[in-house]
Protein backbone atom coordinates (compact mmCIF):
# COMPACT_ATOMS: atom_id res chain seq x y z
CA UNK A 1 0.00 0.00 0.00
CA UNK A 2 1.68 3.13 -1.21
CA UNK A 3 -0.54 5.49 0.74
CA UNK A 4 0.04 3.97 4.13
CA UNK A 5 3.21 3.04 5.92
CA UNK A 6 3.57 -0.61 6.86
CA UNK A 7 2.61 0.09 10.46
CA UNK A 8 -0.45 2.04 9.46
CA UNK A 9 -1.57 -0.64 7.04
CA UNK A 10 -1.29 -3.19 9.83
CA UNK A 11 -3.82 -1.16 11.82
CA UNK A 12 -6.36 -1.99 9.15
CA UNK A 13 -5.36 -5.53 8.26
CA UNK A 14 -4.69 -6.93 11.74
CA UNK A 15 -8.29 -6.71 12.94
CA UNK A 16 -9.38 -8.49 9.77
CA UNK A 17 -7.40 -11.58 10.69
CA UNK A 18 -5.34 -12.35 13.76
CA UNK A 19 -6.62 -9.56 15.96
CA UNK A 20 -10.28 -9.73 14.99
CA UNK A 21 -12.50 -7.88 17.46
CA UNK A 22 -15.15 -10.60 17.58
CA UNK A 23 -13.25 -13.84 17.32
CA UNK A 24 -10.04 -12.88 19.17
CA UNK A 25 -10.85 -9.95 21.42
CA UNK A 26 -14.42 -11.25 21.89
CA UNK A 27 -15.91 -7.75 21.74
CA UNK A 28 -19.22 -6.91 20.12
CA UNK A 29 -20.62 -10.40 20.58
CA UNK A 30 -23.97 -9.02 21.77
CA UNK A 31 -24.85 -7.41 18.46
CA UNK A 32 -23.38 -10.33 16.54
CA UNK A 33 -25.97 -12.55 18.23
CA UNK A 34 -28.88 -10.16 18.06
CA UNK A 35 -29.08 -9.02 14.47
CA UNK A 36 -27.45 -11.66 12.29
CA UNK A 37 -30.63 -13.61 11.47
CA UNK A 38 -30.65 -11.71 8.16
CA UNK A 39 -27.78 -10.84 5.85
CA UNK A 40 -29.15 -7.39 5.09
CA UNK A 41 -29.30 -6.44 8.76
CA UNK A 42 -25.71 -7.59 9.20
CA UNK A 43 -24.52 -5.42 6.34
CA UNK A 44 -26.41 -2.36 7.54
CA UNK A 45 -25.08 -2.79 11.07
CA UNK A 46 -21.51 -3.17 9.79
CA UNK A 47 -21.71 0.06 7.82
CA UNK A 48 -23.20 1.95 10.77
CA UNK A 49 -20.47 0.75 13.10
CA UNK A 50 -17.81 1.60 10.51
CA UNK A 51 -19.07 5.16 10.42
CA UNK A 52 -19.45 5.70 14.16
CA UNK A 53 -16.20 3.98 15.13
CA UNK A 54 -14.16 5.82 12.50
CA UNK A 55 -15.39 9.26 13.55
CA UNK A 56 -15.62 8.49 17.27
CA UNK A 57 -12.05 7.28 17.39
CA UNK A 58 -10.85 10.53 15.80
CA UNK A 59 -12.87 12.69 18.20
CA UNK A 60 -11.62 10.84 21.26
CA UNK A 61 -8.07 10.93 19.95
CA UNK A 62 -8.25 14.71 19.45
CA UNK A 63 -9.57 15.15 22.98
CA UNK A 64 -7.22 12.61 24.55
CA UNK A 65 -4.95 15.12 26.27
CA UNK A 66 -7.71 17.17 27.84
CA UNK A 67 -10.09 14.42 28.99
CA UNK A 68 -9.89 14.04 32.79
CA UNK A 69 -9.04 10.40 33.41
CA UNK A 70 -11.59 10.09 36.23
CA UNK A 71 -14.54 10.63 33.94
CA UNK A 72 -13.12 9.34 30.67
CA UNK A 73 -15.66 6.52 30.33
CA UNK A 74 -18.54 8.99 30.69
CA UNK A 75 -16.94 11.30 28.14
CA UNK A 76 -16.59 8.37 25.71
CA UNK A 77 -20.24 7.46 26.19
CA UNK A 78 -21.34 11.03 25.54
CA UNK A 79 -19.29 11.19 22.35
CA UNK A 80 -20.80 7.96 21.00
CA UNK A 81 -24.32 8.88 22.06
CA UNK A 82 -24.10 12.35 20.54
CA UNK A 83 -22.69 10.99 17.26
CA UNK A 84 -25.39 8.34 17.04
CA UNK A 85 -28.20 10.81 17.74
CA UNK A 86 -26.89 13.24 15.12
CA UNK A 87 -26.61 10.47 12.54
CA UNK A 88 -30.13 9.32 13.40
CA UNK A 89 -31.65 12.80 13.05
CA UNK A 90 -29.86 13.55 9.80
CA UNK A 91 -30.96 10.23 8.34
CA UNK A 92 -34.56 10.82 9.40
CA UNK A 93 -34.51 14.23 7.73
CA UNK A 94 -32.73 13.35 4.49
CA UNK A 95 -32.95 9.58 4.06
CA UNK A 96 -36.16 8.57 5.79
CA UNK A 97 -36.43 5.13 4.18
CA UNK A 98 -32.92 4.22 5.23
CA UNK A 99 -33.48 5.49 8.76
CA UNK A 100 -36.40 3.10 9.15
CA UNK A 101 -34.21 0.16 8.19
CA UNK A 102 -31.62 1.34 10.69
CA UNK A 103 -33.95 2.12 13.57
CA UNK A 104 -33.13 -0.93 15.69
CA UNK A 105 -29.42 -0.67 15.16
CA UNK A 106 -28.96 2.94 16.10
CA UNK A 107 -29.62 2.14 19.74
CA UNK A 108 -27.49 -0.95 19.58
CA UNK A 109 -24.48 0.98 18.31
CA UNK A 110 -24.24 2.97 21.55
CA UNK A 111 -24.00 -0.22 23.58
CA UNK A 112 -21.56 -1.91 21.22
CA UNK A 113 -18.53 -2.88 23.29
CA UNK A 114 -16.19 -2.62 20.28
CA UNK A 115 -16.65 1.13 20.22
CA UNK A 116 -15.91 1.71 23.90
CA UNK A 117 -13.18 -0.91 23.69
CA UNK A 118 -11.33 0.85 20.87
CA UNK A 119 -11.75 4.29 22.45
CA UNK A 120 -10.29 3.02 25.68
CA UNK A 121 -7.58 0.78 24.26
CA UNK A 122 -6.42 2.79 21.27
CA UNK A 123 -7.78 6.28 20.68
CA UNK A 124 -6.86 7.52 24.17
CA UNK A 125 -3.19 6.79 23.48
CA UNK A 126 -2.71 7.51 19.78
CA UNK A 127 -2.99 10.33 17.26
CA UNK A 128 -6.09 11.00 15.16
CA UNK A 129 -4.87 9.47 11.87
CA UNK A 130 -3.81 6.21 13.50
CA UNK A 131 -6.98 6.15 15.52
CA UNK A 132 -9.04 6.62 12.39
CA UNK A 133 -7.29 3.69 10.69
CA UNK A 134 -7.71 1.58 13.81
CA UNK A 135 -11.42 2.41 13.91
CA UNK A 136 -11.91 1.51 10.25
CA UNK A 137 -9.89 -1.69 10.62
CA UNK A 138 -11.78 -2.90 13.66
CA UNK A 139 -15.14 -2.03 12.17
CA UNK A 140 -14.21 -3.99 9.04
CA UNK A 141 -13.08 -6.94 11.12
CA UNK A 142 -16.36 -6.79 12.97
CA UNK A 143 -18.30 -6.49 9.72
CA UNK A 144 -16.61 -9.48 8.08
CA UNK A 145 -17.67 -11.78 10.91
CA UNK A 146 -21.15 -10.29 11.09
CA UNK A 147 -21.70 -10.77 7.38
CA UNK A 148 -20.34 -14.34 7.48
CA UNK A 149 -22.64 -15.26 10.36
CA UNK A 150 -25.59 -13.49 8.74
CA UNK A 151 -24.93 -15.33 5.46
CA UNK A 152 -25.09 -18.79 7.02
CA UNK A 153 -27.98 -18.02 9.35
CA UNK A 154 -30.19 -16.59 6.63
CA UNK A 155 -29.24 -19.27 4.10
CA UNK A 156 -29.76 -22.24 6.38
CA UNK A 157 -32.53 -20.75 8.51
CA UNK A 158 -34.80 -19.14 5.92
CA UNK A 159 -33.37 -20.48 2.66
CA UNK A 160 -32.95 -16.92 1.38
CA UNK A 161 -30.12 -14.42 0.87
CA UNK A 162 -30.95 -10.72 1.10
CA UNK A 163 -34.55 -11.83 0.80
CA UNK A 164 -34.11 -13.77 -2.45
CA UNK A 165 -35.25 -17.38 -2.36
CA UNK A 166 -32.00 -18.99 -3.45
CA UNK A 167 -32.96 -22.52 -2.47
CA UNK A 168 -36.47 -22.56 -3.91
CA UNK A 169 -39.85 -22.04 -2.28
CA UNK A 170 -40.44 -23.97 0.97
CA UNK A 171 -44.24 -23.80 0.70
CA UNK A 172 -44.57 -24.53 -3.01
CA UNK A 173 -41.87 -27.21 -2.65
CA UNK A 174 -39.65 -26.16 -5.52
CA UNK A 175 -35.86 -26.22 -5.91
CA UNK A 176 -34.04 -28.04 -3.10
CA UNK A 177 -37.27 -28.38 -1.14
CA UNK A 178 -38.64 -30.70 -3.83
CA UNK A 179 -36.15 -33.36 -2.77
CA UNK A 180 -37.01 -33.14 0.91
CA UNK A 181 -34.72 -30.35 2.15
CA UNK A 182 -36.08 -28.37 5.11
CA UNK A 183 -35.08 -25.01 6.61
CA UNK A 184 -33.53 -25.25 10.04
CA UNK A 185 -35.57 -22.86 12.18
CA UNK A 186 -32.99 -23.17 14.94
CA UNK A 187 -30.56 -21.16 12.79
CA UNK A 188 -32.80 -18.13 13.28
CA UNK A 189 -32.47 -18.18 17.06
CA UNK A 190 -29.63 -16.43 18.88
CA UNK A 191 -27.85 -19.54 20.23
CA UNK A 192 -27.03 -20.59 16.67
CA UNK A 193 -25.16 -17.30 16.14
CA UNK A 194 -22.94 -18.20 19.06
CA UNK A 195 -22.32 -21.64 17.59
CA UNK A 196 -21.50 -20.18 14.17
CA UNK A 197 -19.09 -17.69 15.76
CA UNK A 198 -17.62 -20.60 17.70
CA UNK A 199 -17.01 -22.54 14.51
CA UNK A 200 -15.31 -19.51 12.94
CA UNK A 201 -13.07 -19.17 16.03
CA UNK A 202 -12.27 -22.88 15.83
CA UNK A 203 -11.27 -22.68 12.16
CA UNK A 204 -9.21 -19.54 12.76
CA UNK A 205 -7.29 -21.07 15.65
CA UNK A 206 -6.68 -24.32 13.83
CA UNK A 207 -5.07 -22.37 11.00
CA UNK A 208 -2.96 -20.25 13.32
CA UNK A 209 -1.91 -22.13 16.49
CA UNK A 210 -0.18 -18.98 17.81
CA UNK A 211 -3.62 -17.69 18.74
CA UNK A 212 -4.28 -20.47 21.23
CA UNK A 213 -3.68 -19.42 24.82
CA UNK A 214 -2.59 -21.96 27.40
Amino acid sequence: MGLLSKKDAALITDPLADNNPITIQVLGICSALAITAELKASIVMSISVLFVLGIGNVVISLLRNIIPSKIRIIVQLIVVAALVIIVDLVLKAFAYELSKTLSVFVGLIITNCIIMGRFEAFALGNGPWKSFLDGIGNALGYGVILIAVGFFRELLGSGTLLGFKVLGDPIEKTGLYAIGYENNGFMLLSPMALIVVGIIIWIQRTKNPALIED
Partner: protein
Amino acid sequence: MSKRTDSNLYTMLFAIGMVVIVGSLLAFVFSQTKPLITQNQKIEKQQNILYAMGVNENDESSAVFISSDKAGAEFSKYIKKQLIIKGAEVTENNEAYLINVKKEQTNAKNGITRKLPLFVGEKEGKTFYIAPIRGKGLWDAIWGYVAMDQNMVVQGAFFDHKGETPGLGANIKQRYFMDDFIGENLMSNGVFKGITVSKSNNDPKNIDKNDNEVDAIAGATITGDGVAAMIKSELSQYVPYFKTLK
Protein backbone atom coordinates in the same frame (compact mmCIF):
# COMPACT_ATOMS: atom_id res chain seq x y z
CA MET B 1 0.61 17.78 32.25
CA SER B 2 -1.31 14.67 33.15
CA LYS B 3 -1.56 16.05 36.72
CA ARG B 4 -3.41 19.11 35.54
CA THR B 5 -6.34 17.06 34.30
CA ASP B 6 -6.60 15.14 37.58
CA SER B 7 -7.83 18.01 39.76
CA ASN B 8 -11.45 17.97 40.86
CA LEU B 9 -12.05 21.50 39.67
CA TYR B 10 -10.80 20.69 36.16
CA THR B 11 -12.92 17.55 36.03
CA MET B 12 -16.04 19.46 37.04
CA LEU B 13 -15.42 22.27 34.58
CA PHE B 14 -14.72 19.78 31.82
CA ALA B 15 -17.94 17.92 32.54
CA ILE B 16 -19.99 21.11 32.56
CA GLY B 17 -18.36 22.39 29.38
CA MET B 18 -18.91 19.06 27.64
CA VAL B 19 -22.59 18.96 28.57
CA VAL B 20 -23.14 22.52 27.37
CA ILE B 21 -21.36 21.95 24.05
CA VAL B 22 -22.92 18.57 23.29
CA GLY B 23 -26.33 19.73 24.52
CA SER B 24 -26.42 22.80 22.33
CA LEU B 25 -25.05 20.88 19.36
CA LEU B 26 -27.84 18.30 19.65
CA ALA B 27 -30.48 20.97 20.19
CA PHE B 28 -29.26 22.78 17.09
CA VAL B 29 -29.31 19.67 14.90
CA PHE B 30 -32.74 18.74 16.26
CA SER B 31 -34.28 22.14 15.57
CA GLN B 32 -32.79 22.16 12.07
CA THR B 33 -34.07 18.71 11.11
CA LYS B 34 -37.45 18.79 12.85
CA PRO B 35 -39.59 20.32 10.06
CA LEU B 36 -38.17 17.85 7.55
CA ILE B 37 -38.76 14.91 9.88
CA THR B 38 -42.37 15.93 10.56
CA GLN B 39 -42.97 16.23 6.84
CA ASN B 40 -41.45 12.79 6.24
CA GLN B 41 -43.68 11.27 8.89
CA LYS B 42 -46.78 12.79 7.32
CA ILE B 43 -45.85 11.36 3.94
CA GLU B 44 -45.18 8.00 5.51
CA LYS B 45 -48.68 7.91 7.01
CA GLN B 46 -50.19 8.68 3.62
CA GLN B 47 -48.07 5.97 2.02
CA ASN B 48 -49.13 3.47 4.68
CA ILE B 49 -52.82 4.21 4.23
CA LEU B 50 -52.55 4.00 0.45
CA TYR B 51 -50.56 0.78 0.74
CA ALA B 52 -53.33 -0.87 2.76
CA MET B 53 -55.93 -0.10 0.08
CA GLY B 54 -53.68 -1.49 -2.62
CA VAL B 55 -52.20 1.71 -4.01
CA ASN B 56 -48.55 0.72 -4.05
CA GLU B 57 -45.73 -0.29 -6.33
CA ASN B 58 -45.39 -3.89 -5.22
CA ASP B 59 -43.64 -6.31 -7.51
CA GLU B 60 -43.82 -10.08 -7.12
CA SER B 61 -42.59 -10.46 -3.57
CA SER B 62 -41.47 -7.15 -2.11
CA ALA B 63 -43.56 -4.45 -0.47
CA VAL B 64 -42.96 -1.07 -2.11
CA PHE B 65 -44.74 2.15 -1.25
CA ILE B 66 -45.73 4.60 -3.88
CA SER B 67 -42.91 7.12 -4.09
CA SER B 68 -42.86 9.86 -1.50
CA ASP B 69 -43.09 12.76 -3.95
CA LYS B 70 -46.30 11.34 -5.41
CA ALA B 71 -47.85 10.39 -2.07
CA GLY B 72 -49.63 13.68 -1.38
CA ALA B 73 -51.36 13.86 -4.77
CA GLU B 74 -52.35 10.20 -4.81
CA PHE B 75 -53.65 10.49 -1.28
CA SER B 76 -56.10 13.22 -2.23
CA LYS B 77 -57.00 11.31 -5.39
CA TYR B 78 -57.90 7.99 -3.76
CA ILE B 79 -59.02 8.95 -0.26
CA LYS B 80 -62.49 10.41 -0.69
CA LYS B 81 -63.39 11.03 2.93
CA GLN B 82 -61.56 11.17 6.22
CA LEU B 83 -63.84 10.52 9.15
CA ILE B 84 -63.49 10.96 12.87
CA ILE B 85 -65.77 8.70 14.85
CA LYS B 86 -66.31 9.89 18.39
CA GLY B 87 -68.92 7.82 20.17
CA ALA B 88 -72.00 7.97 17.97
CA GLU B 89 -70.89 11.17 16.30
CA VAL B 90 -69.19 11.02 12.90
CA THR B 91 -67.48 14.08 11.48
CA GLU B 92 -65.41 14.70 8.39
CA ASN B 93 -61.94 16.12 8.84
CA ASN B 94 -59.20 16.38 6.25
CA GLU B 95 -56.49 16.08 8.86
CA ALA B 96 -57.88 12.91 10.43
CA TYR B 97 -54.85 10.98 9.25
CA LEU B 98 -52.71 13.03 11.61
CA ILE B 99 -54.58 11.83 14.69
CA ASN B 100 -52.15 10.34 17.17
CA VAL B 101 -53.53 6.86 17.83
CA LYS B 102 -51.30 6.35 20.84
CA LYS B 103 -52.60 9.51 22.47
CA GLU B 104 -56.20 8.51 21.80
CA GLN B 105 -55.58 5.13 23.40
CA THR B 106 -54.30 6.86 26.53
CA ASN B 107 -57.35 9.14 26.47
CA ALA B 108 -59.63 6.12 26.32
CA LYS B 109 -57.89 4.66 29.37
CA ASN B 110 -58.51 7.87 31.27
CA GLY B 111 -62.21 7.76 30.48
CA ILE B 112 -62.23 10.29 27.64
CA THR B 113 -64.14 9.17 24.55
CA ARG B 114 -61.62 8.36 21.94
CA LYS B 115 -61.47 9.76 18.43
CA LEU B 116 -61.35 6.94 15.90
CA PRO B 117 -60.05 7.94 12.47
CA LEU B 118 -61.43 6.08 9.46
CA PHE B 119 -60.46 6.72 5.86
CA VAL B 120 -62.83 6.01 3.02
CA GLY B 121 -61.00 5.30 -0.19
CA GLU B 122 -62.20 4.45 -3.67
CA LYS B 123 -60.31 2.53 -6.29
CA GLU B 124 -61.67 1.04 -9.50
CA GLY B 125 -65.25 1.45 -8.28
CA LYS B 126 -64.61 -0.36 -5.02
CA THR B 127 -64.93 1.33 -1.64
CA PHE B 128 -62.35 0.71 1.05
CA TYR B 129 -62.60 1.56 4.72
CA ILE B 130 -59.15 1.93 6.22
CA ALA B 131 -58.53 2.03 9.94
CA PRO B 132 -55.28 2.46 11.86
CA ILE B 133 -54.32 -0.05 14.54
CA ARG B 134 -51.65 0.09 17.20
CA GLY B 135 -50.42 -2.29 19.85
CA LYS B 136 -47.47 -3.96 21.51
CA GLY B 137 -44.99 -6.39 20.00
CA LEU B 138 -42.19 -8.13 21.82
CA TRP B 139 -39.84 -5.18 22.25
CA ASP B 140 -41.76 -2.08 21.37
CA ALA B 141 -44.75 -0.66 19.56
CA ILE B 142 -46.27 -2.27 16.48
CA TRP B 143 -48.86 -0.60 14.30
CA GLY B 144 -50.50 -0.75 10.94
CA TYR B 145 -53.46 0.01 8.72
CA VAL B 146 -56.20 -2.40 7.70
CA ALA B 147 -58.40 -1.81 4.67
CA MET B 148 -61.84 -3.43 4.84
CA ASP B 149 -64.97 -3.57 2.72
CA GLN B 150 -68.32 -2.66 4.24
CA ASN B 151 -68.79 -6.19 5.60
CA MET B 152 -65.49 -6.00 7.48
CA VAL B 153 -63.70 -8.40 5.18
CA VAL B 154 -60.03 -7.42 5.00
CA GLN B 155 -58.99 -6.03 1.60
CA GLY B 156 -55.42 -5.18 2.48
CA ALA B 157 -53.17 -4.78 5.47
CA PHE B 158 -49.98 -3.01 6.31
CA PHE B 159 -47.96 -3.60 9.47
CA ASP B 160 -44.90 -1.90 10.81
CA HIS B 161 -42.91 -2.02 14.01
CA LYS B 162 -40.44 -0.02 15.98
CA GLY B 163 -37.96 -2.59 17.14
CA GLU B 164 -38.98 -6.21 16.54
CA THR B 165 -36.21 -8.76 16.02
CA PRO B 166 -34.83 -8.71 12.44
CA GLY B 167 -35.55 -12.01 10.69
CA LEU B 168 -38.24 -12.96 13.21
CA GLY B 169 -40.83 -10.50 14.52
CA ALA B 170 -39.71 -7.85 12.04
CA ASN B 171 -41.13 -10.08 9.29
CA ILE B 172 -44.65 -8.89 10.06
CA LYS B 173 -43.95 -6.23 7.44
CA GLN B 174 -43.09 -8.83 4.82
CA ARG B 175 -45.50 -9.47 1.99
CA TYR B 176 -45.99 -13.15 2.81
CA PHE B 177 -47.37 -12.22 6.19
CA MET B 178 -49.37 -9.11 5.31
CA ASP B 179 -50.90 -10.64 2.18
CA ASP B 180 -52.29 -13.54 4.20
CA PHE B 181 -54.80 -11.17 5.74
CA ILE B 182 -56.36 -10.24 2.40
CA GLY B 183 -59.81 -11.79 2.14
CA GLU B 184 -59.97 -12.83 5.79
CA ASN B 185 -63.29 -12.06 7.43
CA LEU B 186 -63.14 -10.16 10.70
CA MET B 187 -66.69 -11.23 11.53
CA SER B 188 -67.93 -14.70 12.30
CA ASN B 189 -71.68 -15.28 12.00
CA GLY B 190 -72.39 -11.60 12.44
CA VAL B 191 -70.21 -11.22 15.53
CA PHE B 192 -66.81 -9.51 15.55
CA LYS B 193 -64.11 -12.11 16.07
CA GLY B 194 -60.89 -10.57 14.74
CA ILE B 195 -58.09 -12.53 13.11
CA THR B 196 -55.86 -14.80 15.15
CA VAL B 197 -52.22 -15.27 14.18
CA SER B 198 -52.17 -18.97 14.75
CA LYS B 199 -49.34 -21.45 15.10
CA SER B 200 -51.65 -24.43 14.82
CA ASN B 201 -53.81 -23.71 11.79
CA ASN B 202 -53.02 -26.34 9.23
CA ASP B 203 -53.38 -23.94 6.32
CA PRO B 204 -49.98 -22.49 5.36
CA LYS B 205 -51.24 -21.27 1.99
CA ASN B 206 -54.19 -19.63 3.72
CA ILE B 207 -56.88 -21.05 1.47
CA ASP B 208 -59.65 -20.97 4.10
CA LYS B 209 -60.58 -17.31 4.38
CA ASN B 210 -63.43 -17.74 6.85
CA ASP B 211 -61.51 -19.36 9.70
CA ASN B 212 -60.49 -16.04 11.29
CA GLU B 213 -56.91 -17.32 11.31
CA VAL B 214 -53.67 -16.66 9.46
CA ASP B 215 -50.46 -18.61 9.69
CA ALA B 216 -47.92 -17.42 12.27
CA ILE B 217 -44.24 -16.66 11.66
CA ALA B 218 -41.92 -19.22 13.26
CA GLY B 219 -39.92 -17.69 16.10
CA ALA B 220 -42.16 -14.66 16.37
CA THR B 221 -44.92 -15.85 18.68
CA ILE B 222 -45.18 -12.74 20.83
CA THR B 223 -45.09 -10.32 17.89
CA GLY B 224 -47.74 -12.40 16.14
CA ASP B 225 -49.94 -12.44 19.23
CA GLY B 226 -49.48 -8.67 19.40
CA VAL B 227 -50.77 -8.33 15.83
CA ALA B 228 -53.82 -10.45 16.64
CA ALA B 229 -54.44 -8.48 19.84
CA MET B 230 -54.28 -5.07 18.18
CA ILE B 231 -56.58 -6.16 15.37
CA LYS B 232 -59.08 -7.38 17.92
CA SER B 233 -58.99 -4.46 20.34
CA GLU B 234 -58.78 -1.68 17.76
CA LEU B 235 -60.99 -2.83 14.92
CA SER B 236 -63.77 -4.06 17.23
CA GLN B 237 -64.38 -0.42 18.10
CA TYR B 238 -65.39 0.27 14.51
CA VAL B 239 -68.15 -2.37 14.52
CA PRO B 240 -70.95 0.08 15.49
CA TYR B 241 -69.99 2.31 12.55
CA PHE B 242 -69.98 -0.56 10.08
CA LYS B 243 -73.45 -1.59 11.35
CA THR B 244 -74.75 1.84 10.33
CA LEU B 245 -73.56 1.24 6.75
CA LYS B 246 -76.10 -1.52 6.20
